[in-house]
């Protein structure tokens, strides 16, 4: 089996600060995702990447940048943290989506708080 590791687990930032979240997977999966989870709003897709150096915008990409320099890693940058912002950012990866039981594997999340 594999694992998805998100770092850091907790991130505290200041208003206006640029913050970077990292995600590593050892499944050798091609596709990786970043979601934002807010209470009562479910998971909203920020960015996804089909392969190394590919980036695709999700529905919530404004205010974020992403980078996929290696197949195993996918980083997300909050370009300017908003005051009192609090959310959990989830990274996921998947292999060949055409296989019947292929699914997303999720990390445990990075919890962001902005002071």
């Amino acid at each position, binding site marked *: 089996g594999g694992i998805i590791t998100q770092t850091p687990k907790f991130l505290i930032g200041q208003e206006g600060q640029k913050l970077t979240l990292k995600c590593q997977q050892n499944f050798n999966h091609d*596709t990786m*995702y970043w*979601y934002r989870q807010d209470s*009562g*709003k*479910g*998971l*909203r*897709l920020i960015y*996804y990447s*089909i392969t190394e150096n590919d980036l*695709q915008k*999700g*529905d919530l990409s404004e205010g974020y940048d992403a980078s996929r320099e290696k197949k195993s890693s996918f980083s997300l940058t909050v370009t300017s943290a908003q005051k009192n912002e609090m959310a959990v950012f*989830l990274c*996921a990866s*998947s292999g060949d*989506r*055409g296989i*019947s*039981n*292929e*699914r*997303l*594997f*999720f*990390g*445990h*999340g990075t919890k962001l708080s902005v002071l």
Partner: protein
Amino acid sequence: TQTVSQSDAHVTVFEGDSVELRCNYSYGGSIYLSWYIQHHGRGLQFLLKYYSGNPVVQGVNGFEAEFSKSDSSFHLRKASVHWSDSAVYFCAVEGTNAYKVIFGKGTHLHVLP
């Protein structure tokens, strides 16, 4: 536009009861549909996926879901719930020719003893 609607934010049942968690979707094309579970403080874990063929899909821990193209639905069911089934359940949709996976807002299932 892809959308996923989970109409119930909270569902409360007693242990041993049956439960149905509702999911409706909007998507213009052929799709895969999935359900995921998130226990408190944990990451999301896969429950089951509709890929093709039989519209009733069996998942782990006695869960099943039924795909209905006419109703644009993929409701999750369990015949007899256990207290450990208390969690948030997310429905997800993706196009068969796409990589974008969209989730609903989740339904929090509370199982009382």
